[in-house]
């Protein structure tokens, strides 16, 4: 096919025409599919970790334990939650520069920092929760097994988190490299 034929083919591609009302609806954050899914996940995590803290304080008498131990528990649980809210904001910022190369470069930088802090905060969470149980609960055989199972679960989620970010950042870096090739 010659170039003019390719152009003709490109211009003749049939596309649907979406009405203005539907387009307007798409500009709203509440109707955004990805952001809705992230909001749902954030809400579930918030409820889950809040319930966890309530159980710790009500069921495990954490309020009767040393202040430092409680502070470590609260900080290690609350910090990742706050940072996840920052992550929600970051997921909206796809356009990060005046052209595609600089935008991708800036986006890769932001995601690298976000991924690094996310992983560090997840490690703090595992350590903080682990420390709380070890220092405040009388560990029996069954509780040690429960703690071990919980730690394994959190370590697996940490591994998956690292994998997801490595893959995402790798894909963007590869796109940028191909774009800048021969420059």
């Amino acid at each position: 096919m010659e170039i003019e034929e390719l152009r003709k083919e490109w211009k003749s591609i049939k596309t649907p025409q979406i009405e203005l009302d539907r387009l307007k609806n798409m500009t709203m954050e509440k109707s955004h599919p990805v952001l809705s899914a992230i909001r749902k996940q954030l809400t579930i995590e918030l409820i889950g970790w809040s319930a966890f803290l309530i159980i710790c304080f009500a069921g495990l008498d954490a309020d009767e334990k040393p202040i430092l131990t409680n502070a470590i528990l609260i900080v290690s649980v609350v910090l990742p939650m706050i940072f996840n809210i920052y992550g929600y904001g970051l997921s909206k910022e796809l356009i990060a520069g005046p052209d595609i190369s600089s935008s991708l470069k800036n986006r890769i930088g932001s995601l690298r920092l976000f991924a690094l802090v996310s992983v560090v905060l997840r490690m703090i969470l595992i350590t903080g929760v682990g420390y709380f149980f070890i220092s405040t609960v009388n560990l029996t055989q069954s509780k040690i097994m429960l703690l071990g199972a919980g730690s394994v679960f959190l370590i697996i989620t940490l591994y998956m988190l690292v994998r997801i970010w490595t893959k995402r950042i790798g894909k963007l870096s590869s796109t940028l490299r191909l774009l800048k090739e021969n420059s």
Partner: protein
Amino acid sequence: MIQDNQRIIHKVCRIYRDSLEDREDLFQEVIFQLWRSYPSFRGGSKSSTWLYRITLNTAMASFRKNKPNVTSSEYLPDIQLEDINNEGNERQEKFLESIKRLSEPDRALIALYLDELSYQEIAGILGISENNVGVKLNRIKIRLQKLIK
């Protein structure tokens, strides 16, 4: 502006996503990003050039939910089903599938070129030199013609 230029967005979605669901998600993401970016549009470039930049940037920077399946033959066109079997549509599908076999940056370059943007405009959108645009386009045109044959 979006309504007038939505053909551009649909075409970009066709060449950057395989499944209908992924294309719809990308279309909505693009509309959302255009809406968010509009306050920074100063009118220094043509509205279609700006729209192309945001659309292609979104297509390359966003993450798809489903795994890409470039070689799939179960490609679902988002146009009328009665067109599936006619010759023109088959040719068009082959043409689009060939573009999708290019790398993501190359798809952007060829889309801009086929829509007759100048080398200067393409370089401005992608953030590469005009010379590089020319070098890359020569290579892409040859590759695309081989893929279509």
